[in-house]
Structures are given as structure tokens and as C-alpha cells.
């Protein structure tokens, strides 16, 4: 018997992702994003979250998916990593799911390199696969990618 973990799920392109709900601070839609020319790859820009400047992470470029500029439907999922707030830019926010590890499996080895690192594993749901993202690795990997 294992305890269930709550996941907040969302869509980016054709992929269905989840992160632990306990990591999520809040969700906000339609925030203006200021791009950062020459900034590291994967950073969409800065978001003003009630007076605090938050770095927005573009999940698409971070996972080396086809880039698409954020629009007013883009939703930011804010989470905290080592004391700093970040926003994950996603297309559609879906349900919160309670899942235990009976459906869990390690990440398939045929994922491309970038995704392999950031995806901790997969939950096999009845209709589709839920890819579990590690938000902390999303941040820690970025510095190395700086375009400088």
C-alpha cells in the first residue's frame, strides 16, 4: 500500500504533464511576459506577479519542443524553488489527480535527452500517459544553457 500523491496536470502541445500539487503556489492566466533578449534558453521572460518579478519558464523550449510564443491564453503555474518563485508557461490547465505508485513507471528510455532529465516518470492512466515533471530540475538545468 502506498499513499496517493496529488498532481496538478496540464497540457503543453500534445503532451499531458503533471507536477506535484504541493510544489504549486498558484495559477494565473493572461499575464504579460517581458522577453529577455540574450537570456538563457528556456526562459520565456519576466512576469509581474503582484509587484514581484518572476522568471517565466517556457516548457516548450525547455523540452526542446516546437517553440510557440506565449499568448493571452497562456497559463502560468507558479512554484517555488530554493526560495525563488518561477512560473511555468503551459497551454491548458487540467484536473488535479490523486495517484499512487501502482500506475507509476520510470521514464521511458527512448525520451529525448532533455526530456529524459526533467521527466521523473510516467503514470499510465486509462486513457493516456501522464508525464511527471521535476520542477527543480527544470530550474537547475537552465544556467548551463545560458546564451551569454
Amino acid at each position, binding site marked *: 500500500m502506498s499513499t496517493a500523491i496529488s498532481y496538478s496536470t496540464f497540457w503543453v502541445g500534445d503532451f499531458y504533464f503533471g507536477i506535484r500539487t504541493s510544489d504549486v503556489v498558484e495559477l494565473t492566466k493572461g499575464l*504579460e511576459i*517581458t*522577453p*529577455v*533578449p*540574450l*537570456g*538563457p534558453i528556456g*526562459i520565456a*521572460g*519576466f*512576469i*509581474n506577479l*503582484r*509587484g*514581484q*518579478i*518572476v*522568471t517565466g519558464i517556457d516548457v516548450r523550449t525547455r523540452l526542446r519542443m516546437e517553440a510557440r510564443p506565449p499568448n493571452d491564453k497562456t497559463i502560468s503555474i507558479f512554484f517555488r524553488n530554493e526560495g*525563488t*518563485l*518561477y512560473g511555468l508557461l503551459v497551454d491548458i490547465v487540467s484536473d488535479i489527480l490523486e495517484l499512487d505508485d501502482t500506475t507509476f513507471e520510470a521514464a521511458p528510455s527512448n525520451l529525448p535527452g532533455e526530456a529524459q532529465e526533467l521527466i521523473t516518470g510516467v503514470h499510465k492512466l486509462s486513457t493516456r500517459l501522464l508525464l511527471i515533471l521535476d520542477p527543480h530540475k527544470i*530550474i537547475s538545468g*537552465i*544556467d548551463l544553457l*545560458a*546564451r*551569454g
Partner: protein
Amino acid sequence: MAFDTNDQILDEFLEEAREIFDQLDSDFVRLEQNPDDKKLVGNIFRAMHTLKGSSSFFAFRRLEKVAHSGESLLSRLRDGGLALTAPITDALLETADRLREIVHGISETRLEIEGDDRTLLATLKALTEGAPIEPALDVIPGPHTEPDIEAVITVTKDTVKSHDQILLDKPPIHATVSVAEAEPMVSAAETMLKENARNTDISAPVKVSVELLDNLMNLVSEMVLGRNRLLSFATHSGDMNFTSTVRTIDMITLELQERMMKTRMQPISQVWGKFPRLVRDLSQECDKKVELIQIGSETELDRTLLDGIRDPLVHIIRNSIDHGIETPQSRLELGKKDTGTITLRSMHENGMVVIEITDDGGGINIPLVARKAVEKGLVSAERANKLSDREIIDFIYLPGFSTKEVITNLSGRGVGMDVVRTNVQSIGGSVDIATGSQGTKIRLRIPLTLAIMPAVFVRCQNQRFAIPQNNLFEMVRHQPRDDVPGLEDFYGVPVFRLRNKLIPLLFLNRELGLSNDAPSHNAPLNIVVVQAADILFGLVVDEVLYMQEVVLKPVGPLLKSTTVYSGATILGDGRVALIFDIAGIAIRSGLLSKLIDKKFEVDIDTPTESSVPLQQMLLFDLVDLERIAIPLDYVDRLEMFSASRIERRGSQRVIVYGEHIMRLISLSDFVEGASEIWAYGEETVSVIVHYHDGQPIGFVVKQIHDIISAPSEVIINTPRQRGILGNAIVGEHAISFLNINDILAQIGIEASGEHYAGHPSASPTYTIPHSRTTL
């Protein structure tokens, strides 16, 4: 040990100890000047005692021992059993230094470092007993390998004894202290606190963590943004209750914001407090007599900036004592007092903090500096002869430059002024030197706070960026014409000519990788001339937008590797704008290395003195928009009115002014970027009165500064900032010129045929033909 689990208590102790040391330093120096001040001795005694009490609580034996011996000596001084002599002062200062050293060790390692205090303890003991100092050194004989513990016992026993003797001398006062000592140390500390409280009678300040303050600051900024949204609702609402509530919230928010800013501010005395001791030590080392005078030590500036000015000030004072002030003998020969004076003066000026360090020494030896510069190959001998004094003084800022033949403990390593200028510039300040045979005055200008800084906004593609004003040199619209050469190529670097100077150019869109477009050959260029790392270069931008004060916000760790930005700010519309790090841009572009490789000689000619005519202007601020200038010709009177005297006539505000009813015009309504002054509930308003056909018109402004001489050439903003004709650089600031004729026309007053004469060049001239000034 006990303190392993008591990290927080230990931290508090360390903080307290540091405060005590700072106080001790200045008290000791004061004591030397007033040896009979019993109150001062009492203060020092109590400080030492508090330290001892706390250290025994943490079982810091060494600290306790040294503090105790010092305390014993002090108590004899306090009782009048001993008179203060130079050896005693030296011993006490050494005690304070030793204690500081031990505490420093504790703060690094959380443990008491080991060390040999026997000589010091013996000296203290000997002095306490009134013995001359020399034999005291032999009190504890034996090799240095002798176990430390033995010395401890000897000394402790002796000092306890001497302490008892004192108790017998004056039982009533010391009874409380000795009882307190016998009790657990916590209560001893409490007793001391009570005693301190009785003596000072000041309510104790509360210590708040910096993090909490920063959080509060953030919340207040948020509240200001919320208030702004609320205000726009209120203007469209007919509900009086609602609007008056909004007005109340508005005023409270403003107040809150101002108070909050104040929490970051700390008096400069926090840095200056250490200087009396520094001056004392340095002057003794140099065999000079120096007196330190501090004026304006209550001047406040941001705490982050306080750290930034500490080192520069130490270097300057060091230079003053070592180089500037002469020996007492030569001072007397020169007809000066034998004691030299260093005056520290600080004040607020134009939103900056000015710190002046003046000494009455011999001044900078300019021929010597010039000779050294030639010796070091910095300049050829014949060129050195042509240089002005000012240009020669500039050499002392170079790293490694020193006029001292011998490197001493104090100076001569040639790092001093280099450090001064680098540090001061890094916090957005500037350094000025005036020197002569009667002394040297060094003037530091420091911004009040780093968190808020003026910046000019530029557009590149569809993004807005901020350039910090302290990097800003000039803004130019460059239009190639027959008599104005266009861009030229200089060893692969595009350059343009700015008054006989070649300025290398960077195209911002290409530097940022936003686009690769090159401007067409004859297209006008908007060039922001900036200065970084001592080079001037031009940034070509799509548009120069406006100047605004920006609040620097932290941007998180991910931008560390992106060197072209120093931070970000939130604009009035809630969007984020990036702030450039100009030096970062210069380095990244490779411009810096190109310039160094090619020995790029930027001067074509020695720049001639500016022949641009100057005109008198009055400088004032509007809310959110500072340093605006109006030609003095338009200023007839300056007035302050109580807000209660202002009446409303329909949409207009008027005031009874002599025999006239004067219309009050809020300039912020006509100037883009300024905020409404009425919203701020000021009790008095500053008004610039302008007479038109015998009728007074009052322009309401936030604050009036002074009259300046401004160049009559302005740099036009593109697009035009509503109400502003253009900008000019005066001194180190950009000022905006009010488009007064336009505003007069808008309020239905024709400027009777007076127009700003348009100049055919890219920099139109701002001339006002008439003059009738009765200030």
C-alpha cells in the same frame, strides 16, 4: 557545548558585541580628549562588563578573562584611583582590539580561537595596581611553551583581589554590581541592561530582519499599484463616499510608502563612528596631530550604500593623514596650527548625499604627480607640461599610482584613489577633488538609495529598456547632412563624430540579437551616448522614450549569466522592463577589447570649451518626474500656499492672490510621465507665478530647487514627450526643458509671438527672446 544549540543567541551576542566595540572605539577617543569625564569611563566600564557577562554565559573563557582585566583597570579609573595616562589608553585600546579579534574569531568559527593574552593581561594588571608598565612585562616569567592555564589562574586571582579592594573603597555603588556577578550571568546581563536604561533613558530600538523589511517593501509597492488602479475607478465614479474613501486610502498608501523607504535609511554615523579611532591611530603612526570634525552625521542613506562608502572614506582619510597633513613642525613653519583638521561633512543635495572630506594639509603635490606620471610612462614629458591641473590630478585615480617613494603601512601601494573611485562609481556616485596649498577637499556624491534610480527608457524593436542615468552621457539625434559626416568606419568599428570626438557605436538591435537590420545610409540615428569603464560609446536605439525614476527589483538567479542586464523594474502599467548593465554590453560586444587592441585614440582634437550659450533656468520637480527646467524669464514670483486657501471654480482651481484671482495650473496635467499633485493631499503647494498681460497664472509643482545655468541647446526626445521640449545634461544630471509655450497655448494663452526659435540642425536651440524677471 551549550552554544551549539543556541546559534541564534550566539548570533545576537555577536551582533551586540560588535555594537559595543563600535561604541568603545569612539568612547575611548573621546576619553582621551576629556580624561576626567567620569560618565564616559562609566560607559566604557559598563560596556566591558556586559561583554564579560555575556561571554561567560557562552563559556568563552579567553574573552571573559581579557574583558575582566580591562574592566578592573576601568573601575579604578572610574573611582579616581588612577588617572588616565597614555599607557593606560593604549592598554585599553589594545584590550578592545584583542576582544574584537576574539569575537571576530568566534563569528567565523563559532568557537573561541586560541591565543596568548598573557602579556596584555599582565600589562593590564600592572596598570591596575598602579605599577609602571616596564616591570609588568616580567610578571609572568617563563618560556612561551608554559601552559596557558597557569597564567589564567594567576591573573584571575590577582584581578579578583584588586576588584575586591575597589569594592571596599566604594561599597554602595558596587554592591549591586558584585551581587549581579555572583548570580547567574543572565541576570547579570539584565542588571546591566537596567543600569544602561537608567543612564540613557531612550526607548530601545527593535531589531527587525532585513528580509522582513524587504518583504514589507514589496507589499507596499504592490499596494501602490493597487491604489493606482483604484484611483482610476474613483475618477469615473459619482459616488462621493467611494471617492472619499479612495482618497483616504491614497493618502495612507503614500504615507506608508514614504515611511517604508525610511526603514532602509540609516544615518551615516554608522560608518563614521569608527573614524575617530582610525584618525587617532593613523596620526600617532605618522607622528602628526590631527583632529577630526564630523558635521551632519545624522544624514541618512540606504544601508546597502553605507557599506559601499566605508572603504573609500577610509582610504581618503588615510591619504589625508599620510600625504595631506604636514608634521606639526612644518605646519608651525607654514603658519598653520600644529594640529591638522579633517572635516567630514555630509548633507542632502538634489536627491543625492554629498560627503565632503576636507583637510587643511598641503594639498596634492601636482608637479610631483606629473613627474611620477612621466616616470611611469603614462604620459610624455611635453604633453605633461600642457596638461591642466585637473587632468594631472586624474592620474591619481589610476591603479598602482603612488607618489610615495617608500611603501608604508599606511599608503604608497597606489591602490587608494583607484579603490575610492571604483567603489563610488559602482554605487552610482562620483568623486571630485579640489586641492591647494591650504588643503584638499574631496567631494563624494552618492545616490540616496540604490533601490530607486533615474533611468532613461529606450525602445528597441517592440521592447522597452532602461539605461541607468549614471551611465548616461548625452542623447543625440544624428542626421547625416552635407556638413555632418555620417557613420565612419574606424578599424572595423562604426563611429560617429560628436563635437570633434569619435564615438564608437553599437547597434542595440544587433547586440541583443533582436534583428540584424542595419540603418539605411541616410537615416537619422537615435544615439544614446553612454559611459562605462571609462570609455564613451553610442548605443543606437529605435527611439528614446522618456526619463523616469525606476525601482530596482530583484530578478532571481537565472539571469546571472546574462551580463547585459543589471536588473529589472516594474513600469506604471504593470509590465516588466529590463535595466541594462552598460559595462556588460560594452564587454560582451567586444568593443572594449577592440578599443584596447587598436589603441583607439578617441580624441581627434582636444575638445574646445563649449561655446554653447548658457541661460538661466529654474529647476523644479513634479510628482514622479524630477529636474524639469523652466526659463527664468517666465518666472515672476515663487510662492507657497496653504492648500486650504485653494478654491474650486468649476473645473478650475483658483486662489486669491493680492488683488487678483489667480488660476492654478497643475503642470502635471500637461507633462507626460508626471502624476497628479492634488492626489497627494499636500498641506502646502509650491507655485511658480507667471504674469501674462498683468494677470497672474500659477503653475503648481511639487518642489522648487534652484536656479541653474543650462545650455540653450536641447536634445529633442523622439517621440516628443508631451509637455517637454527636450533634454540637456547639466553637471551630472539630465534635465528636461518644459515646453512652456505649448502649455500656455493649451490653457488658452497665446505666447504673444514668442516662439522657440527652431534651429536647422538636429539639435534645435532653445532661446527665449524676452526677459522680465522680478524674482
